[in-house]
C-alpha cells in the first residue's frame, strides 16, 4: 500500500467516525427534544393554565401557580438586572475601555458567567433567607439577578463596542455632551445587539433551577406575595418529576415543555435581531 493510499484510507476512517459522532450526538439530542414535545403536548390542556397545584391523585391539578411564580421571579430579576447590567456595560465600553479596572471587571464577569449557579443560591440564602428567616420570592429574584448581571454586562459591552466611533465623533462635533451621545447615539446604534443580550440573559435565568431550590423554594398554590415562598416552573418540574405520582410527573413534563419552548423562542428571537442588524450593515 502506498503512502497516499494509507492517507486516503485514514482520511475516510476519520471522516466516517466524525459523521457518525455527529449522528450519534444529534440523535441523542433529537431523542430528548422529541420526548419533550411528545410528553409535553400530551400533558398540555387548558386546565394546566387555569388550575393551581392539587394533591396527587386529583386530576384537576395545574401549573398556574408555577407559571405566575416563574413570571414574577424572572420579571423582578430582569427589572433590576437588565438596567444595571446595561449601565455597567456602558461604563466598560464608553468610559473604562481598556483601563485596568475595566479589564478586571470584564474578566471577573466572564468567570462569573460560568460559575455554578447553585453557589449563588447558597450565597443568597445566607444574605437574605437566613436573616429574614424565610424563603421568599425576593430571594429567588435576587439570585437570578446576580446570575443575569454579568451576561447583560458583557453583551452590552461587546455590542456598544461595535458602534462605529465615527458616529460618536460626529455627535461630539455637534457639541453634544457625552451622556447624550451615549444615550441618543450609541444606545440607538446598538439597540438590536443590546436587545439580543437582554433576551439571552432572560432566557438563561428562566431555566435556572438550582439557585431557586433554597431561595424562592416552592409553593403548591398560587402566591403573588414576593415576601413568601414562591413556585417556579423549574422547581415545580423538579419536585413533580421526582415524585412517585403519575399525574404529577405528567405535569412535570408539561412544565418542561412550556419552559423549553419559552427559552427556545427567546433564543431564536435574539438571533433574528442580530441577523437583522447584520443585514443592515
Amino acid at each position, binding site marked *: 500500500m502506498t503512502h497516499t493510499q494509507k492517507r486516503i484510507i485514514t482520511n475516510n476512517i476519520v471522516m466516517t467516525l466524525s459523521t457518525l459522532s455527529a449522528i450519534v450526538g444529534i440523535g441523542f439530542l433529537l431523542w430528548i427534544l422529541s*420526548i419533550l414535545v411528545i410528553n409535553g403536548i400530551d400533558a398540555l390542556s387548558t386546565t394546566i393554565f387555569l388550575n393551581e397545584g392539587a394533591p396527587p391523585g386529583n386530576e384537576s391539578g395545574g401549573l398556574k401557580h408555577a407559571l405566575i411564580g416563574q413570571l414574577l421571579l424572572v420579571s423582578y430579576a430582569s427589572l433590576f438586572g437588565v438596567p444595571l447590567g446595561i449601565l455597567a456595560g456602558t461604563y466598560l465600553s464608553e468610559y473604562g475601555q481598556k483601563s485596568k479596572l475595566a479589564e478586571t471587571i470584564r474578566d471577573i464577569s466572564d468567570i462569573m458567567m460560568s460559575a455554578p449557579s447553585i453557589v449563588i443560591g447558597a450565597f443568597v440564602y445566607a444574605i437574605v433567607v437566613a436573616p429574614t428567616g424565610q424563603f421568599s420570592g425576593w430571594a429567588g429574584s435576587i439570585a437570578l439577578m446576580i446570575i443575569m448581571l454579568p451576561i447583560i454586562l458583557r453583551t452590552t459591552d461587546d455590542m456598544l463596542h461595535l458602534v462605529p466611533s465615527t458616529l460618536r465623533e460626529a455627535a461630539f462635533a455637534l457639541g453634544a455632551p457625552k451622556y447624550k451621545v451615549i444615550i441618543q447615539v450609541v444606545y440607538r446604534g446598538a439597540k438590536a445587539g443590546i436587545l439580543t443580550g437582554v433576551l439571552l440573559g432572560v432566557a438563561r435565568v428562566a431555566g435556572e433551577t438550582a439557585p431557586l431550590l433554597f431561595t424562592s423554594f416552592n409553593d403548591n398554590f398560587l402566591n403573588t406575595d414576593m415576601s413568601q415562598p414562591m413556585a417556579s416552573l423549574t422547581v415545580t418540574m423538579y419536585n413533580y418529576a421526582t415524585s412517585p405520582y403519575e399525574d404529577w410527573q405528567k405535569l412535570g413534563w408539561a412544565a418542561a415543555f412550556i419552559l423549553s419552548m419559552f427559552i427556545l423562542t427567546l433564543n431564536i428571537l435574539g438571533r433574528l435581531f442580530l441577523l437583522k442588524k447584520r443585514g443592515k450593515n
Partner: protein
Amino acid sequence: MSNMIDKIFANATKFIALGVLLIVAWIFTVLFEHSLESIKAFGFSFLTEDKWAPNLEKFGALPAIYGSVVSTFLAMLLAVPVAIGVAIFLSEIAHAKIKMPVGVSIELLAAIPSVVYGMWGLFYFVPIIRDIFGGIGISMLTAGIVLSIMILPFMAAVTRDAMNTTPDILKESAYALGATKWDVVKDIIIPYAKAGIIGSFILALGRAIGETMAVTFVMGNVHNISIDLTQPATSIPVTLANEFAEADSELYYSSLFELSLLLLVISFTIISIAKFYFLRRKRIGQ
C-alpha cells in the same frame, strides 16, 4: 448643567460596574464566614474524611469530591471525542445546506435548561442503564453519561467556532498540495485552533463540575465511595441541592457552606485557567 449630568452619569455607571466586583468579593466573604464553624471543627480532615453522617454530626467531603471528579471525568471522556467529531463534521464535512440548520440546532440545544436533561435522564435513561448494567439505574455511570450529553452541545459549538477561525487560505493551500480532509484537520486546523479548543474543553469541564440539575435526578445522593460505577453516588452540587433546605444544625449548615465555597474555588480556578491561558478573547469587531 449638562456638565454635571455628564459627571453623574459617568460615575453612576462606574459605581454599578464596580458593584459587580463587590458582589463577587461579597460572595466569597459570605461563604467563607458561614464555613468557619465547619473549618474550625474539621480543619483539613473535611477534605479527606469519607463519612457524611448528619445524625452523628460527622461531615467529610471526600465522597462528594470523589463523585464530582469521577462523574466529570466520565462526562469529559465521553463528550470530548464526540464534540470533536461533531465540530469536524460541521466545519469540514457537512454540505453548506445542512451546516446552518445543524449548527443552529446544536446551539439552541445548549440553551435547553439542565433540569430538562435531568428529567429525561431519570425517566428514559435510568431504565436503560438498569437493564444493561444492573443495579437500580441511578448511579455514577448514569450521571456521567447524562452530564456528557448536556455539555456536548456547548463543547461542539465552541470547538466548531474555534476551528472556524482557521483562515481559509491556509486550508486551501494545504488542499492544493494534495492534503486530505483529515490531513488538513490534523496538521492545519487543530494546531491553529489548539488554544481555543483546549480552552473550550476546560470551560466545559468547569461547567460540568458545577452542574447541578442534570445530575441531581440520576445520581442518588448517596455518600459512598465506590469503584463500581453502577452504584449510586453523590457530588458537591448534588449534596447541596438535596440537603441545603433540610440542614437542621449549625455544623450541618456550615459544612454545606464549606462545600459551596469549595465548589466555587474549584470552578473559579478551572474557568480562570481556561480564560487566561487559552481563551484570551479578542473582542468582536476588533
